[in-house]
Protein backbone atom coordinates (compact mmCIF):
# COMPACT_ATOMS: atom_id res chain seq x y z
CA UNK A 1 0.00 0.00 0.00
CA UNK A 2 1.43 3.35 -1.03
CA UNK A 3 0.17 6.50 0.66
CA UNK A 4 1.35 9.98 -0.23
CA UNK A 5 0.89 12.69 2.39
CA UNK A 6 0.95 16.31 1.23
CA UNK A 7 2.17 18.63 3.95
CA UNK A 8 3.03 22.30 4.30
CA UNK A 9 5.55 24.16 6.41
CA UNK A 10 3.83 27.17 8.00
CA UNK A 11 4.77 29.91 10.44
CA UNK A 12 3.29 29.14 13.85
CA UNK A 13 0.34 31.51 13.66
CA UNK A 14 -0.05 31.51 17.43
CA UNK A 15 3.26 33.35 17.63
CA UNK A 16 2.82 35.81 14.80
CA UNK A 17 2.82 39.48 15.68
CA UNK A 18 2.11 42.40 13.43
CA UNK A 19 4.37 45.41 13.58
CA UNK A 20 2.19 48.18 15.03
CA UNK A 21 3.60 50.88 12.73
CA UNK A 22 4.42 49.20 9.44
CA UNK A 23 1.58 46.64 9.57
CA UNK A 24 3.85 43.89 8.37
CA UNK A 25 4.32 40.43 9.78
CA UNK A 26 7.22 40.23 12.19
CA UNK A 27 8.76 36.95 11.12
CA UNK A 28 11.80 37.13 13.35
CA UNK A 29 11.71 34.40 15.93
CA UNK A 30 8.47 32.93 14.62
CA UNK A 31 9.17 29.21 14.33
CA UNK A 32 8.30 27.34 11.14
CA UNK A 33 6.30 24.20 11.94
CA UNK A 34 4.54 21.43 10.08
CA UNK A 35 0.97 22.59 9.57
CA UNK A 36 -0.63 20.97 12.67
CA UNK A 37 -3.61 19.62 10.68
CA UNK A 38 -1.22 17.70 8.40
CA UNK A 39 0.04 15.63 11.32
CA UNK A 40 -3.34 13.90 11.58
CA UNK A 41 -3.02 12.99 7.90
CA UNK A 42 0.52 11.67 8.35
CA UNK A 43 -0.35 9.63 11.44
CA UNK A 44 -3.32 8.06 9.65
CA UNK A 45 -1.08 7.08 6.73
CA UNK A 46 1.47 5.59 9.15
CA UNK A 47 -1.29 3.60 10.86
CA UNK A 48 -2.36 2.12 7.54
CA UNK A 49 1.24 1.19 6.89
CA UNK A 50 1.35 -0.51 10.31
CA UNK A 51 -1.71 -2.55 9.32
CA UNK A 52 -1.08 -3.30 5.67
CA UNK A 53 2.61 -2.68 5.15
CA UNK A 54 3.82 -0.56 2.25
CA UNK A 55 5.25 2.89 1.86
CA UNK A 56 4.47 6.38 3.10
CA UNK A 57 5.82 9.22 0.97
CA UNK A 58 5.62 12.83 2.13
CA UNK A 59 5.57 15.71 -0.30
CA UNK A 60 5.76 19.42 0.20
CA UNK A 61 5.90 22.38 -2.12
CA UNK A 62 7.85 25.27 -0.71
CA UNK A 63 11.16 27.05 -0.33
CA UNK A 64 14.39 25.09 0.43
CA UNK A 65 13.91 25.61 4.19
CA UNK A 66 10.80 23.36 4.03
CA UNK A 67 13.27 20.47 4.01
CA UNK A 68 13.21 20.65 7.82
CA UNK A 69 9.48 19.83 7.86
CA UNK A 70 10.07 16.81 5.62
CA UNK A 71 12.90 15.52 7.86
CA UNK A 72 10.56 15.79 10.82
CA UNK A 73 8.03 13.62 8.92
CA UNK A 74 10.78 11.07 8.21
CA UNK A 75 11.61 10.99 11.91
CA UNK A 76 7.98 10.07 12.64
CA UNK A 77 8.32 7.10 10.31
CA UNK A 78 7.65 8.26 6.74
CA UNK A 79 9.72 6.30 4.21
CA UNK A 80 10.43 8.84 1.51
CA UNK A 81 10.29 12.62 1.19
CA UNK A 82 10.12 14.94 -1.79
CA UNK A 83 10.57 18.69 -1.78
CA UNK A 84 9.10 20.44 -4.79
CA UNK A 85 10.81 23.76 -5.04
CA UNK A 86 11.27 26.26 -7.81
CA UNK A 87 11.62 30.02 -7.86
CA UNK A 88 8.84 30.21 -10.42
CA UNK A 89 6.38 28.82 -7.83
CA UNK A 90 6.54 31.99 -5.70
CA UNK A 91 3.14 33.62 -5.34
CA UNK A 92 1.16 30.56 -6.43
CA UNK A 93 -2.48 30.59 -5.33
CA UNK A 94 -4.40 27.45 -4.37
CA UNK A 95 -5.35 26.57 -7.95
CA UNK A 96 -1.71 26.64 -9.09
CA UNK A 97 -0.52 24.87 -5.94
CA UNK A 98 -2.87 21.98 -6.70
CA UNK A 99 -1.56 22.01 -10.29
CA UNK A 100 2.08 21.69 -9.21
CA UNK A 101 1.31 19.08 -6.55
CA UNK A 102 -0.71 17.06 -9.06
CA UNK A 103 2.23 17.13 -11.48
CA UNK A 104 4.42 15.92 -8.60
CA UNK A 105 2.03 13.09 -7.76
CA UNK A 106 1.95 12.00 -11.41
CA UNK A 107 5.74 11.90 -11.38
CA UNK A 108 5.69 9.77 -8.21
CA UNK A 109 3.21 7.39 -9.86
CA UNK A 110 5.66 6.77 -12.69
CA UNK A 111 7.83 4.77 -10.30
CA UNK A 112 5.19 3.51 -7.84
CA UNK A 113 1.38 3.49 -8.09
CA UNK A 114 -0.42 5.48 -5.38
CA UNK A 115 -3.35 4.04 -3.42
CA UNK A 116 -4.18 6.95 -1.14
CA UNK A 117 -3.37 10.63 -0.99
CA UNK A 118 -3.72 12.37 2.34
CA UNK A 119 -3.85 16.06 3.25
CA UNK A 120 -4.80 17.91 6.41
CA UNK A 121 -8.23 19.55 6.42
CA UNK A 122 -6.64 22.97 5.82
CA UNK A 123 -3.51 24.95 6.72
CA UNK A 124 -3.27 27.39 9.61
CA UNK A 125 -1.74 30.17 7.51
CA UNK A 126 -4.01 30.15 4.47
CA UNK A 127 -7.02 28.37 6.04
CA UNK A 128 -8.52 27.77 2.59
CA UNK A 129 -9.08 23.97 2.52
CA UNK A 130 -8.85 24.23 -1.27
CA UNK A 131 -5.70 22.37 -2.26
CA UNK A 132 -6.89 18.87 -1.27
CA UNK A 133 -10.10 19.07 -3.33
CA UNK A 134 -8.08 20.67 -6.13
CA UNK A 135 -5.67 17.73 -6.37
CA UNK A 136 -8.53 15.20 -6.28
CA UNK A 137 -10.33 16.93 -9.15
CA UNK A 138 -7.21 17.21 -11.27
CA UNK A 139 -6.38 13.53 -10.81
CA UNK A 140 -10.04 12.54 -11.14
CA UNK A 141 -9.77 10.79 -7.78
CA UNK A 142 -12.70 10.36 -5.44
CA UNK A 143 -12.58 13.08 -2.78
CA UNK A 144 -13.30 12.37 0.87
CA UNK A 145 -13.00 15.53 2.99
CA UNK A 146 -13.20 15.91 6.78
CA UNK A 147 -12.67 12.19 7.37
CA UNK A 148 -12.93 11.39 11.06
CA UNK A 149 -12.26 7.66 10.82
CA UNK A 150 -11.03 5.10 8.33
CA UNK A 151 -13.38 2.22 9.06
CA UNK A 152 -11.73 -0.38 6.87
CA UNK A 153 -9.69 -0.90 3.73
CA UNK A 154 -10.28 -3.88 1.47
CA UNK A 155 -7.12 -4.05 -0.62
CA UNK A 156 -8.29 -7.08 -2.57
CA UNK A 157 -11.44 -5.34 -3.84
CA UNK A 158 -9.76 -1.90 -3.75
CA UNK A 159 -12.45 -0.47 -1.51
CA UNK A 160 -12.35 1.85 1.47
CA UNK A 161 -15.02 2.82 3.99
CA UNK A 162 -14.72 6.01 6.02
CA UNK A 163 -16.71 8.19 8.36
CA UNK A 164 -16.94 11.76 7.15
CA UNK A 165 -18.01 14.75 9.20
CA UNK A 166 -20.91 16.36 7.36
CA UNK A 167 -22.74 19.51 8.39
CA UNK A 168 -25.46 17.97 10.57
CA UNK A 169 -24.11 14.49 11.12
CA UNK A 170 -21.69 11.80 10.04
CA UNK A 171 -21.72 10.11 6.65
CA UNK A 172 -20.53 6.53 6.33
CA UNK A 173 -19.06 6.45 2.83
CA UNK A 174 -17.74 3.67 0.64
CA UNK A 175 -15.51 4.36 -2.32
CA UNK A 176 -12.78 2.79 -4.41
CA UNK A 177 -9.03 3.24 -4.36
CA UNK A 178 -7.20 5.33 -5.29
CA UNK A 179 -8.80 8.30 -3.54
CA UNK A 180 -7.87 11.49 -1.70
CA UNK A 181 -8.63 11.94 1.99
CA UNK A 182 -8.47 15.17 3.97
CA UNK A 183 -8.21 14.20 7.62
CA UNK A 184 -10.16 15.93 10.36
CA UNK A 185 -8.20 17.13 13.37
CA UNK A 186 -8.31 15.39 16.72
CA UNK A 187 -8.87 12.01 15.09
CA UNK A 188 -5.58 10.46 16.15
CA UNK A 189 -2.42 11.34 18.01
CA UNK A 190 0.99 11.64 16.37
CA UNK A 191 3.35 8.93 17.53
CA UNK A 192 6.82 9.46 18.89
CA UNK A 193 9.24 8.39 16.21
CA UNK A 194 11.78 5.79 17.25
CA UNK A 195 15.52 6.36 17.45
CA UNK A 196 16.25 4.55 14.18
CA UNK A 197 13.91 6.84 12.30
CA UNK A 198 15.44 9.86 13.94
CA UNK A 199 18.92 8.91 12.73
CA UNK A 200 17.61 7.95 9.31
CA UNK A 201 15.78 11.27 9.00
CA UNK A 202 18.95 13.23 9.72
CA UNK A 203 20.98 11.38 7.09
CA UNK A 204 18.29 10.77 4.50
CA UNK A 205 18.94 12.19 1.06
CA UNK A 206 15.58 13.59 0.26
CA UNK A 207 14.56 14.32 -3.28
CA UNK A 208 14.42 17.92 -4.42
CA UNK A 209 12.40 18.34 -7.59
CA UNK A 210 12.15 21.53 -9.58
CA UNK A 211 9.54 22.56 -12.12
CA UNK A 212 11.08 20.73 -15.03
CA UNK A 213 11.43 17.46 -13.11
CA UNK A 214 7.67 17.36 -12.54
CA UNK A 215 7.07 18.12 -16.19
CA UNK A 216 5.79 21.69 -16.05
CA UNK A 217 7.41 23.27 -19.09
CA UNK A 218 5.89 26.72 -19.08
CA UNK A 219 6.88 28.92 -16.09
CA UNK A 220 3.93 31.20 -16.91
CA UNK A 221 1.49 28.47 -15.79
CA UNK A 222 2.69 28.64 -12.16
CA UNK A 223 3.45 31.32 -9.61
CA UNK A 224 1.86 34.75 -9.79
CA UNK A 225 1.46 34.56 -13.58
CA UNK A 226 -0.40 31.27 -13.51
CA UNK A 227 -2.69 32.18 -10.63
CA UNK A 228 -6.23 33.40 -11.36
CA UNK A 229 -6.34 35.29 -8.06
CA UNK A 230 -4.15 38.23 -7.22
CA UNK A 231 -3.63 39.99 -3.89
CA UNK A 232 -4.37 43.66 -4.38
CA UNK A 233 -3.93 44.83 -0.81
CA UNK A 234 -2.64 43.62 2.57
CA UNK A 235 -3.57 45.54 5.71
CA UNK A 236 -4.00 45.22 9.46
CA UNK A 237 -7.45 44.82 11.02
CA UNK A 238 -8.94 48.11 12.18
CA UNK A 239 -8.66 48.55 15.90
CA UNK A 240 -11.92 49.28 17.68
CA UNK A 241 -12.18 53.02 18.26
CA UNK A 242 -12.70 52.61 21.98
CA UNK A 243 -11.00 50.54 24.59
CA UNK A 244 -13.07 48.54 27.04
CA UNK A 245 -14.72 50.37 29.88
CA UNK A 246 -12.67 48.97 32.74
CA UNK A 247 -14.54 48.09 35.87
CA UNK A 248 -11.83 48.24 38.44
CA UNK A 249 -12.78 49.48 41.86
CA UNK A 250 -9.65 49.57 43.94
CA UNK A 251 -9.45 46.58 46.25
CA UNK A 252 -13.10 45.85 45.70
CA UNK A 253 -14.63 42.43 46.15
CA UNK A 254 -15.51 40.30 43.11
CA UNK A 255 -19.12 40.56 44.24
CA UNK A 256 -19.13 44.33 43.88
CA UNK A 257 -17.30 44.15 40.56
CA UNK A 258 -19.97 41.79 39.25
CA UNK A 259 -22.92 43.87 40.35
CA UNK A 260 -21.29 47.07 39.06
CA UNK A 261 -20.79 45.39 35.68
CA UNK A 262 -24.41 44.25 35.48
CA UNK A 263 -25.75 47.66 36.48
CA UNK A 264 -23.63 49.52 33.90
CA UNK A 265 -24.17 47.01 31.14
CA UNK A 266 -27.94 46.92 31.56
CA UNK A 267 -28.24 50.72 31.73
CA UNK A 268 -26.30 51.09 28.50
CA UNK A 269 -27.80 48.04 26.77
CA UNK A 270 -31.47 47.76 27.84
CA UNK A 271 -32.11 45.31 24.95
CA UNK A 272 -29.58 42.93 26.43
CA UNK A 273 -31.30 43.15 29.79
CA UNK A 274 -34.61 42.15 28.17
CA UNK A 275 -32.84 39.28 26.34
CA UNK A 276 -31.48 37.97 29.62
CA UNK A 277 -34.77 38.52 31.45
CA UNK A 278 -36.39 36.16 28.89
CA UNK A 279 -34.32 33.41 30.42
CA UNK A 280 -36.01 33.88 33.78
CA UNK A 281 -39.10 32.21 32.37
Amino acid at each position, binding site marked *: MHSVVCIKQVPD*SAQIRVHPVTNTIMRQGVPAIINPYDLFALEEALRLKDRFGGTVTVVTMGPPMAEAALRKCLSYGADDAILVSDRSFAGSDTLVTSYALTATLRKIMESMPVDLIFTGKQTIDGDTA*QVGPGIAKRLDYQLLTYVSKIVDVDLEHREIRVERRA*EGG*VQLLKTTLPCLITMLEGTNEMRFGDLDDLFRAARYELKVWDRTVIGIEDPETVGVKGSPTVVSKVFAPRPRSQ*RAEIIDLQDDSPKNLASTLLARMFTQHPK*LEREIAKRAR
Partner: protein
Amino acid sequence: MNEQARKPARKKVELDPRFVSYRHVWVFIESERGEVHPVSWELLGEGRKLADALNVDLCGVVIAGPGERGKGICAEAFGYGADKCYLLQDPVLADYRNEPYTKALTDLVNTYQPEILMLGASTLGRDLAGSVATTLKTGLVADCTELLIDTESRNLAATRPTFGGSLLCTILTQRHRPQMATVRPRVMAMPDADPSRRGEIVEVPFAMLETSIITKVLEYIPDDSRDKPNLPFADIIVAGGRGLKKPENFALVWDLARVLGAEVGGSRPVVQAGWIELDRQVGQSGKTVRPKLYIAAGISGAIQHRVGMDGADVIVAINSDPKAPIFDFAHYGIVGNAMTVLPALTEAFKAHLAQARKAG
Protein backbone atom coordinates in the same frame (compact mmCIF):
# COMPACT_ATOMS: atom_id res chain seq x y z
CA MET B 1 2.15 29.46 -0.87
CA ASN B 2 0.90 32.26 1.25
CA GLU B 3 -0.56 35.59 0.48
CA GLN B 4 2.20 37.55 2.15
CA ALA B 5 4.67 36.33 -0.43
CA ARG B 6 2.48 37.55 -3.24
CA LYS B 7 3.15 41.03 -4.47
CA PRO B 8 0.19 43.35 -4.93
CA ALA B 9 -1.00 43.69 -8.53
CA ARG B 10 0.45 46.58 -10.44
CA LYS B 11 -0.83 46.71 -13.95
CA LYS B 12 -4.46 46.38 -14.89
CA VAL B 13 -5.41 42.90 -16.02
CA GLU B 14 -8.17 42.58 -18.59
CA LEU B 15 -10.95 40.02 -18.45
CA ASP B 16 -10.43 37.04 -20.75
CA PRO B 17 -12.78 37.53 -23.77
CA ARG B 18 -14.34 34.09 -23.14
CA PHE B 19 -16.00 35.48 -20.02
CA VAL B 20 -17.14 38.91 -21.18
CA SER B 21 -20.79 37.89 -21.40
CA TYR B 22 -20.87 36.33 -17.90
CA ARG B 23 -23.55 38.10 -15.85
CA HIS B 24 -25.46 37.86 -12.55
CA VAL B 25 -24.64 36.98 -8.98
CA TRP B 26 -25.27 33.44 -7.76
CA VAL B 27 -25.61 32.00 -4.28
CA PHE B 28 -25.50 28.26 -3.71
CA ILE B 29 -28.39 27.53 -1.33
CA GLU B 30 -27.09 24.75 0.89
CA SER B 31 -29.72 22.34 2.11
CA GLU B 32 -29.65 18.91 3.64
CA ARG B 33 -32.87 16.93 3.93
CA GLY B 34 -34.94 20.03 3.18
CA GLU B 35 -33.19 22.05 5.90
CA VAL B 36 -31.48 25.17 4.59
CA HIS B 37 -28.22 26.20 6.23
CA PRO B 38 -28.80 29.77 7.50
CA VAL B 39 -25.48 30.88 5.97
CA SER B 40 -27.26 30.73 2.59
CA TRP B 41 -29.70 33.43 3.67
CA GLU B 42 -26.84 35.55 5.01
CA LEU B 43 -25.19 35.18 1.59
CA LEU B 44 -28.37 36.24 -0.19
CA GLY B 45 -28.38 39.38 1.96
CA GLU B 46 -24.83 40.14 0.87
CA GLY B 47 -25.45 38.97 -2.71
CA ARG B 48 -28.35 41.41 -3.00
CA LYS B 49 -25.97 44.33 -2.42
CA LEU B 50 -23.50 42.99 -5.02
CA ALA B 51 -26.24 42.37 -7.59
CA ASP B 52 -27.60 45.88 -7.07
CA ALA B 53 -24.12 47.37 -7.47
CA LEU B 54 -23.69 45.45 -10.74
CA ASN B 55 -27.28 46.04 -11.81
CA VAL B 56 -27.93 42.33 -12.40
CA ASP B 57 -30.10 39.54 -10.97
CA LEU B 58 -29.43 37.67 -7.76
CA CYS B 59 -29.94 33.96 -8.38
CA GLY B 60 -30.09 31.02 -6.00
CA VAL B 61 -29.03 27.49 -6.86
CA VAL B 62 -31.03 24.78 -5.09
CA ILE B 63 -29.81 21.19 -5.38
CA ALA B 64 -31.83 18.48 -3.66
CA GLY B 65 -33.32 15.00 -3.81
CA PRO B 66 -36.67 14.50 -5.60
CA GLY B 67 -38.75 14.10 -2.44
CA GLU B 68 -37.46 17.29 -0.82
CA ARG B 69 -39.23 20.65 -0.75
CA GLY B 70 -37.15 22.22 -3.52
CA LYS B 71 -39.78 24.77 -4.57
CA GLY B 72 -40.41 25.70 -0.97
CA ILE B 73 -36.71 26.49 -0.56
CA CYS B 74 -36.81 28.63 -3.73
CA ALA B 75 -39.82 30.55 -2.36
CA GLU B 76 -37.89 31.23 0.85
CA ALA B 77 -34.87 32.36 -1.18
CA PHE B 78 -37.05 34.93 -2.98
CA GLY B 79 -38.07 36.25 0.43
CA TYR B 80 -34.40 36.76 1.29
CA GLY B 81 -33.70 38.69 -1.92
CA ALA B 82 -33.23 36.25 -4.82
CA ASP B 83 -34.79 37.18 -8.17
CA LYS B 84 -34.45 33.75 -9.70
CA CYS B 85 -33.69 30.21 -8.55
CA TYR B 86 -32.22 27.32 -10.50
CA LEU B 87 -33.68 24.10 -9.10
CA LEU B 88 -32.11 20.68 -9.68
CA GLN B 89 -33.78 17.66 -8.13
CA ASP B 90 -32.67 14.12 -8.81
CA PRO B 91 -32.32 10.89 -6.83
CA VAL B 92 -28.50 11.02 -7.13
CA LEU B 93 -28.56 14.43 -5.39
CA ALA B 94 -30.43 13.27 -2.29
CA ASP B 95 -27.34 13.05 -0.08
CA TYR B 96 -24.43 15.41 -0.52
CA ARG B 97 -21.67 13.75 -2.48
CA ASN B 98 -18.79 15.60 -4.05
CA GLU B 99 -18.94 14.03 -7.52
CA PRO B 100 -22.60 14.61 -8.54
CA TYR B 101 -22.81 17.99 -6.80
CA THR B 102 -19.63 19.21 -8.48
CA LYS B 103 -20.96 18.11 -11.85
CA ALA B 104 -24.38 19.68 -11.21
CA LEU B 105 -22.97 23.06 -10.19
CA THR B 106 -20.19 23.10 -12.81
CA ASP B 107 -22.61 22.27 -15.64
CA LEU B 108 -25.01 24.94 -14.42
CA VAL B 109 -22.25 27.56 -14.37
CA ASN B 110 -21.11 26.62 -17.87
CA THR B 111 -24.67 26.86 -19.17
CA TYR B 112 -25.90 30.05 -17.49
CA GLN B 113 -22.54 31.82 -16.96
CA PRO B 114 -22.69 33.85 -13.73
CA GLU B 115 -20.00 36.43 -12.95
CA ILE B 116 -20.00 35.75 -9.20
CA LEU B 117 -20.66 32.50 -7.34
CA MET B 118 -20.80 32.42 -3.55
CA LEU B 119 -21.04 29.48 -1.17
CA GLY B 120 -21.13 29.13 2.60
CA ALA B 121 -17.80 28.10 4.15
CA SER B 122 -19.38 25.06 5.78
CA THR B 123 -17.94 21.54 5.46
CA LEU B 124 -20.22 21.01 2.47
CA GLY B 125 -19.55 24.42 0.93
CA ARG B 126 -15.78 24.13 1.20
CA ASP B 127 -15.76 20.62 -0.25
CA LEU B 128 -17.88 21.78 -3.17
CA ALA B 129 -16.32 25.21 -3.78
CA GLY B 130 -12.77 23.87 -4.06
CA SER B 131 -13.88 21.17 -6.48
CA VAL B 132 -15.96 23.48 -8.68
CA ALA B 133 -13.27 26.18 -8.82
CA THR B 134 -10.62 23.65 -9.84
CA THR B 135 -12.87 22.14 -12.51
CA LEU B 136 -13.64 25.61 -13.88
CA LYS B 137 -9.99 26.75 -13.38
CA THR B 138 -11.18 29.97 -11.79
CA GLY B 139 -10.25 31.91 -8.66
CA LEU B 140 -11.77 31.09 -5.29
CA VAL B 141 -11.37 33.19 -2.14
CA ALA B 142 -12.17 31.41 1.11
CA ASP B 143 -13.69 32.84 4.30
CA CYS B 144 -14.34 36.35 3.03
CA THR B 145 -15.24 38.97 5.59
CA GLU B 146 -15.99 41.79 3.17
CA LEU B 147 -17.15 41.81 -0.46
CA LEU B 148 -17.15 44.92 -2.64
CA ILE B 149 -17.67 45.59 -6.34
CA ASP B 150 -15.50 47.73 -8.57
CA THR B 151 -18.25 48.86 -10.94
CA GLU B 152 -15.93 49.73 -13.82
CA SER B 153 -14.13 46.38 -14.08
CA ARG B 154 -17.03 44.48 -12.46
CA ASN B 155 -14.37 42.84 -10.29
CA LEU B 156 -15.22 41.47 -6.89
CA ALA B 157 -12.83 42.71 -4.20
CA ALA B 158 -12.87 39.88 -1.68
CA THR B 159 -11.27 40.58 1.69
CA ARG B 160 -10.24 37.74 3.99
CA PRO B 161 -8.08 37.21 7.06
CA THR B 162 -4.66 35.71 6.50
CA PHE B 163 -1.93 34.44 8.83
CA GLY B 164 -4.47 33.28 11.36
CA GLY B 165 -6.22 36.64 11.26
CA SER B 166 -3.13 38.74 11.96
CA LEU B 167 -3.65 40.57 8.67
CA LEU B 168 -6.39 41.08 6.13
CA CYS B 169 -5.88 40.87 2.40
CA THR B 170 -8.03 41.84 -0.54
CA ILE B 171 -8.02 39.41 -3.46
CA LEU B 172 -9.20 39.90 -7.04
CA THR B 173 -9.97 37.42 -9.81
CA GLN B 174 -9.42 39.69 -12.79
CA ARG B 175 -9.20 37.40 -15.82
CA HIS B 176 -11.62 34.63 -14.95
CA ARG B 177 -15.32 34.20 -14.32
CA PRO B 178 -17.16 33.33 -12.23
CA GLN B 179 -15.36 34.97 -9.36
CA MET B 180 -15.89 32.51 -6.52
CA ALA B 181 -16.01 33.23 -2.80
CA THR B 182 -16.97 31.44 0.38
CA VAL B 183 -18.17 33.18 3.53
CA ARG B 184 -18.40 31.64 6.96
CA PRO B 185 -21.66 31.38 8.85
CA ARG B 186 -22.39 34.46 10.97
CA VAL B 187 -19.86 36.71 9.26
CA MET B 188 -22.57 38.53 7.32
CA ALA B 189 -25.77 39.76 8.97
CA MET B 190 -29.00 37.81 8.52
CA PRO B 191 -31.29 39.82 6.20
CA ASP B 192 -34.97 40.38 7.04
CA ALA B 193 -37.23 38.09 5.04
CA ASP B 194 -40.02 39.57 2.93
CA PRO B 195 -42.47 36.70 2.31
CA SER B 196 -44.36 38.77 -0.28
CA ARG B 197 -41.33 38.85 -2.66
CA ARG B 198 -41.70 36.60 -5.67
CA GLY B 199 -39.23 35.24 -8.21
CA GLU B 200 -38.77 32.89 -11.12
CA ILE B 201 -37.99 29.19 -10.70
CA VAL B 202 -35.95 27.59 -13.49
CA GLU B 203 -36.12 23.81 -13.21
CA VAL B 204 -33.02 22.22 -14.70
CA PRO B 205 -32.87 18.49 -15.46
CA PHE B 206 -29.83 16.58 -14.22
CA ALA B 207 -28.74 13.44 -16.03
CA MET B 208 -26.35 11.32 -14.04
CA LEU B 209 -26.83 7.64 -13.35
CA GLU B 210 -26.29 6.24 -9.88
CA THR B 211 -24.24 3.43 -11.44
CA SER B 212 -21.72 5.99 -12.74
CA ILE B 213 -21.10 7.47 -9.27
CA ILE B 214 -18.29 5.73 -7.43
CA THR B 215 -18.78 6.95 -3.86
CA LYS B 216 -21.81 5.58 -2.01
CA VAL B 217 -23.41 6.84 1.18
CA LEU B 218 -23.97 3.71 3.25
CA GLU B 219 -25.40 5.47 6.27
CA TYR B 220 -26.05 8.92 7.65
CA ILE B 221 -25.92 9.34 11.39
CA PRO B 222 -27.44 12.71 12.33
CA ASP B 223 -25.91 14.47 15.31
CA ASP B 224 -27.96 14.48 18.45
CA SER B 225 -28.91 18.15 18.37
CA ARG B 226 -29.45 18.16 22.12
CA ASP B 227 -25.81 17.75 22.95
CA LYS B 228 -24.33 19.21 19.78
CA PRO B 229 -23.19 22.75 20.50
CA ASN B 230 -24.31 25.40 18.06
CA LEU B 231 -22.08 28.33 18.85
CA PRO B 232 -22.47 30.32 15.62
CA PHE B 233 -26.16 30.86 16.36
CA ALA B 234 -26.05 31.17 20.16
CA ASP B 235 -27.35 34.44 21.66
CA ILE B 236 -25.12 34.28 24.71
CA ILE B 237 -21.70 32.64 24.94
CA VAL B 238 -19.45 32.22 27.97
CA ALA B 239 -15.93 31.36 26.86
CA GLY B 240 -12.81 30.40 28.74
CA GLY B 241 -9.10 30.47 27.95
CA ARG B 242 -5.73 29.50 29.27
CA GLY B 243 -6.10 32.03 32.09
CA LEU B 244 -8.32 29.51 33.86
CA LYS B 245 -5.11 27.60 34.59
CA LYS B 246 -6.59 24.13 35.13
CA PRO B 247 -9.24 22.07 33.27
CA GLU B 248 -11.22 21.72 36.52
CA ASN B 249 -11.67 25.48 36.64
CA PHE B 250 -13.63 25.33 33.39
CA ALA B 251 -16.57 24.21 35.56
CA LEU B 252 -16.90 27.89 36.55
CA VAL B 253 -17.56 28.74 32.90
CA TRP B 254 -20.20 26.02 32.67
CA ASP B 255 -21.85 27.27 35.87
CA LEU B 256 -22.31 30.77 34.50
CA ALA B 257 -23.45 29.41 31.13
CA ARG B 258 -26.08 27.27 32.82
CA VAL B 259 -27.54 30.26 34.68
CA LEU B 260 -27.67 32.32 31.48
CA GLY B 261 -28.85 29.51 29.20
CA ALA B 262 -25.68 30.20 27.25
CA GLU B 263 -23.38 28.11 25.08
CA VAL B 264 -19.83 27.41 26.25
CA GLY B 265 -16.87 28.28 24.07
CA GLY B 266 -13.11 28.45 24.31
CA SER B 267 -9.91 29.63 22.71
CA ARG B 268 -7.62 27.40 20.65
CA PRO B 269 -5.19 26.52 23.47
CA VAL B 270 -7.90 25.07 25.72
CA VAL B 271 -9.44 23.11 22.86
CA GLN B 272 -6.01 21.75 21.95
CA ALA B 273 -5.44 20.84 25.58
CA GLY B 274 -8.70 18.89 25.45
CA TRP B 275 -10.52 20.90 28.13
CA ILE B 276 -13.52 21.34 25.84
CA GLU B 277 -14.56 19.77 22.55
CA LEU B 278 -13.59 20.94 19.09
CA ASP B 279 -17.04 22.28 18.18
CA ARG B 280 -16.67 24.87 20.91
CA GLN B 281 -13.53 26.54 19.56
CA VAL B 282 -14.08 30.20 18.72
CA GLY B 283 -11.73 31.95 16.31
CA GLN B 284 -9.98 31.78 12.96
CA SER B 285 -9.50 28.02 13.05
CA GLY B 286 -12.78 27.46 14.92
CA LYS B 287 -16.24 29.01 14.74
CA THR B 288 -17.28 32.55 13.95
CA VAL B 289 -19.93 33.71 16.42
CA ARG B 290 -22.26 36.70 16.65
CA PRO B 291 -23.95 36.54 20.04
CA LYS B 292 -25.71 39.39 21.82
CA LEU B 293 -23.38 38.84 24.78
CA TYR B 294 -19.92 37.27 24.81
CA ILE B 295 -18.21 36.78 28.15
CA ALA B 296 -14.51 35.93 27.81
CA ALA B 297 -12.81 34.62 30.95
CA GLY B 298 -9.05 34.20 30.99
CA ILE B 299 -8.76 34.79 27.25
CA SER B 300 -5.97 37.14 26.23
CA GLY B 301 -7.65 38.11 22.97
CA ALA B 302 -5.09 37.00 20.39
CA ILE B 303 -6.07 38.05 16.91
CA GLN B 304 -6.93 34.44 15.99
CA HIS B 305 -9.59 34.49 18.68
CA ARG B 306 -10.75 38.01 17.98
CA VAL B 307 -11.66 37.42 14.33
CA GLY B 308 -14.14 34.78 15.46
CA MET B 309 -16.02 36.87 18.02
CA ASP B 310 -15.56 40.50 17.04
CA GLY B 311 -19.13 40.60 15.73
CA ALA B 312 -20.66 40.12 19.21
CA ASP B 313 -22.96 42.98 20.29
CA VAL B 314 -21.50 43.20 23.80
CA ILE B 315 -18.16 41.72 24.85
CA VAL B 316 -17.25 41.38 28.52
CA ALA B 317 -13.66 40.42 29.27
CA ILE B 318 -12.24 39.14 32.53
CA ASN B 319 -8.46 39.00 32.67
CA SER B 320 -5.88 39.44 35.38
CA ASP B 321 -3.49 41.20 32.98
CA PRO B 322 -4.56 44.81 32.45
CA LYS B 323 -2.44 44.88 29.27
CA ALA B 324 -4.19 41.89 27.68
CA PRO B 325 -5.17 42.73 24.09
CA ILE B 326 -8.77 41.68 24.76
CA PHE B 327 -9.30 44.97 26.63
CA ASP B 328 -8.58 46.80 23.36
CA PHE B 329 -11.78 45.57 21.80
CA ALA B 330 -14.05 44.34 24.59
CA HIS B 331 -16.84 46.69 25.69
CA TYR B 332 -16.46 46.00 29.39
CA GLY B 333 -13.39 44.78 31.16
CA ILE B 334 -12.88 43.41 34.62
CA VAL B 335 -9.23 43.27 35.63
CA GLY B 336 -9.16 40.38 38.03
CA ASN B 337 -8.80 36.70 38.62
CA ALA B 338 -11.35 34.79 36.50
CA MET B 339 -11.54 32.09 39.15
CA THR B 340 -13.05 34.52 41.67
CA VAL B 341 -14.87 36.86 39.28
CA LEU B 342 -16.75 34.08 37.42
CA PRO B 343 -18.57 32.73 40.52
CA ALA B 344 -19.41 36.32 41.53
CA LEU B 345 -20.87 36.95 38.07
CA THR B 346 -22.85 33.73 38.27
CA GLU B 347 -24.34 34.85 41.58
CA ALA B 348 -25.07 38.36 40.28
CA PHE B 349 -26.89 37.05 37.18
CA LYS B 350 -28.76 34.53 39.34
CA ALA B 351 -29.95 37.33 41.62
CA HIS B 352 -30.88 39.49 38.64
CA LEU B 353 -32.92 36.67 37.08
CA ALA B 354 -34.67 35.94 40.38
CA GLN B 355 -35.68 39.57 40.51
CA ALA B 356 -36.91 39.52 36.93
CA ARG B 357 -38.90 36.40 37.74
CA LYS B 358 -40.53 38.13 40.72
CA ALA B 359 -41.38 41.18 38.63
CA GLY B 360 -43.01 38.74 36.15
